[in-house]
């Protein structure tokens, strides 16, 4: 599995595409929009990441997972840089990521601040339970039709 040739930028992006978000493993860290840039200089690679929430405990896991995944592909000189401006926004979630979230039972973020529909039965009759949920990025909602509670990916 060890690549001897210097990796290309596209290759790095492909490899990062295989690194799942530790808390919502159906989407990758690329889908999540936390990878801001990839720079390659010979055999040294620099990956610029941005945190979702400042206190999100998953960020250190994400950094570790990226290091692990790239090391497996033979990247030995890796620098991870954190950049907080411009700040992460849910607009950076990829279309694929949004679709995967819904399949997984998490309503994707919307500008209006509330989910479009219940991810289970697709009813649009939904209500807020709490602005906060099981992770910093989620709020708790409930469907008035199928009565199932569900997570909503907060829009910021």
């Amino acid at each position, binding site marked *: 599995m060890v690549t001897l040739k210097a990796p290309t930028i596209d290759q790095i992006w492909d490899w990062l595409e295989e690194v799942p978000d530790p808390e919502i493993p159906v989407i990758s860290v690329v889908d999540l929009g936390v990878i801001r840039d990839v720079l390659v200089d010979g055999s040294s690679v620099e990956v610029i990441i941005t*945190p979702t929430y400042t206190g999100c405990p998953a960020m250190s896991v994400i950094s570790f997972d990226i290091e692990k995944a790239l090391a497996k592909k033979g990247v030995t000189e890796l620098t991870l840089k954190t950049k907080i401006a411009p*700040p992460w926004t849910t607009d950076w979630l990829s279309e694929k990521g949004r679709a995967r979230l819904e399949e997984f039972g998490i309503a994707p973020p919307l500008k209006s601040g509330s989910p479009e529909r219940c991810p289970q039965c697709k009813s649009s009759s939904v209500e807020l339970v709490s602005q906060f949920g099981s992770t910093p990025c989620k709020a708790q909602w409930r469907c008035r039709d199928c009565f199932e509670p569900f997570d909503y990916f907060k829009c910021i």
Partner: protein
Amino acid sequence: MLVLGHRTSEWCGVAPALEEDIALANIALDLIGQAKLWLEYAGEVEDAERTANTLAFRRDFYDFRNLLMLELPNEDYARTIIRHFLFDAFQVPWLEALAASSDETISSIGQKTVKEANYHLERSQDTVVALGDGTEESNTRMQKALHDLWPYAGEMFQDDEIDRMMQGESIAPLPSSMKKAWELRVERVFNDAFLILPDSDFSHSGGRQGIRHTEHLGHMLASMQFLQRAYPGASW
């Protein structure tokens, strides 16, 4: 922020409802995350090889620079909600102003954290109205909390030498310039919540300059800093 973050985390597992417990744990995480960004930068500016961790866990209480309101114990849940609201209503415009700072790092931290502060404000404001306009008991307790905390709120708007220096270099506005808009919001929300604003201008001071702290900060630090004091440099 670190102080309030720690105080807020004390509700974890004992808040009055599960949703509240989760909300406060999340807010505490945000605040501690924000504190980390500020302290990291403070360490960098100071250039004395102190990191965010040493600033947080190895400073004694007289070296802390924080609003006295934030170090008071949680006591009643009403006090927690009122405190968050008074603070959030200041933080949002304050961080918005810092986002426009002439200092690049301060500006980027401002841009990042104001989004979280907005979310906190939305919730604390709604909760103030819900509890103020709730039952007789919830209203009474909110009124008492407001009465207890009001003499600490003014400290947010007191300018000192450092503030004036930062204003001179367009790093940050004067805290006093935030007061008018804050008062308007606070009056409107307390009005909606059927809570009466105390009629007093008296304000405690000195926490931000480290001139004084309440007796409560030391107790809080004893628990917050225990691990790094007992096992200096411990990590996992």
